Structures are given as structure tokens and as C-alpha cells.
């Protein structure tokens, strides 16, 4: 029961819209994880290069997709990998260190497509439960 049927146009019709399969590393799916997940999202204690090593040198477009270097309106690769803590804050609405607001938004969209979402975790931190 899909609210809006996406069946592709019949074979042979002329109207074909563009479609990107995307890079091997750029996930096309974000899964909402249970709140207070025990398995600390890998994003917390890892470093995330933007873009990933496989596409060093490529630029990041405003919607987070990877585009050839020098594409107008896109951002150059980040000068250093972001810490997990920075990414968690950015995912919750903060800004990545050493970036302009627009740059940060593009990178966050790229990162969000790279790893699964962490449901409820950032909100839990704000319940200020002092950890023993």
C-alpha cells in the first residue's frame, strides 16, 4: 500500500528522468535506530573524512551528494576528518567546526547519508542523567 506509486515509466517511452546509483560508499538509506541504543553509534568514537577516502578531491554539493572537483556551488573537501562528537552535535542541529553554516549543512547531509541515524540518543544526553 504505497501512498504514491513510483512505478517507472513503461519501457521505450522517451521521457526518462536522470538517476544516480551513487558511489559504493554513499549509502542511500538511513535507518532510524531504537532510542538509547546500547551499541554506541559508530559515529561517536570514530572520525569521518568528508568525502570518504575513496573520493578524495571530489566536492560536496548542497544536497550532500559527491560531485566532481570545482563544480560551481559545491564545497571543497573538508580539510580534516570530523570527530564523532562533532558529528553527533551537528546531526542534532549544531555546526561542524571550521566550516561556514552552508558548508556545514552540506557536509551534514553527506554524513547523514553515510551512516544510520541515531534515534533518541542526542535527546537522552540532554536529560542530564549524571553517569556513574
Amino acid at each position, binding site marked *: 500500500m*504505497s501512498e504514491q506509486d513510483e512505478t517507472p515509466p513503461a519501457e521505450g517511452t522517451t521521457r526518462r528522468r536522470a538517476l544516480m546509483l551513487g558511489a559504493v560508499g554513499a549509502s542511500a538509506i538511513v535507518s532510524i535506530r531504537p532510542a538509547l541504543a546500547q551499541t554506541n553509534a559508530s559515529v561517536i568514537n570514530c572520525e569521518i573524512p568528508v568525502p570518504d577516502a575513496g573520493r578524495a578531491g571530489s566536492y560536496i554539493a548542497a544536497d550532500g551528494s559527491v560531485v566532481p572537483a570545482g563544480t560551481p556551488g559545491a564545497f571543497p573537501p573538508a580539510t580534516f576528518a570530523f570527530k564523532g562528537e562533532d558529528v553527533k552535535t551537528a546531526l542534532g542541529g549544531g555546526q561542524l567546526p571550521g566550516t561556514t553554516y552552508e558548508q556545514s549543512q552540506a557536509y551534514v547531509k553527506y554524513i547523514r547519508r553515510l551512516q544510520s541515524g541515531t534515534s533518541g540518543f542526542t535527546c537522552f544526553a540532554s536529560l542530564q542523567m549524571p553517569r556513574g
Partner: protein
Amino acid sequence: MAERLFHAEPAEALRIVPLDDFTLVFHRPSGLTHLVTAPAPEILAILAGGPRTRDALLQRLAEAYDLADPSPEALDARLAELVAAGLVRAA
């Protein structure tokens, strides 16, 4: 193993709600929610018509859309993500 068939979940198992460049997919059997972006909705729509091998799927995608990067490895990666999420079954 190229002739492995990829099956979509039955239609009644999914709630698909397009939003913007992401589409919401609620998977009833697991109770989990996924946000998918191109080419995942398009892959799910084709497989909803019936199971296909990776090559048949790639060919159907190339016919239906203007594929800028028709690489089998990229399609394998997209399929692997959908299998890991439980939205596609490889048999």
C-alpha cells in the same frame, strides 16, 4: 552468484511516503523506519513488480531512467543496504 534473485517485501508490508529528496519507508514486520533516497525508491518500485537478478534490475533501471553511472558494483552496494535493512530479500 550473478543469478541470485532479489525479492521486494510484499506491498502490504511497506508504508512508502515520499517527502523531499528522501522517502519514508515504514517496514511493518520489523516495525522499523527507514529514510531512503535515490536510487532506493526506484529499485523498490521495480522489484515490487517481481523478483529480478542484479543484471536484470540494472537493465530495467537503464531502460526506465537516464543512468549517469550504470555500474554493477554501485547497484550491488545499494542492494546490499536494502537487504541489510530487511526491505529486500536475496534468495
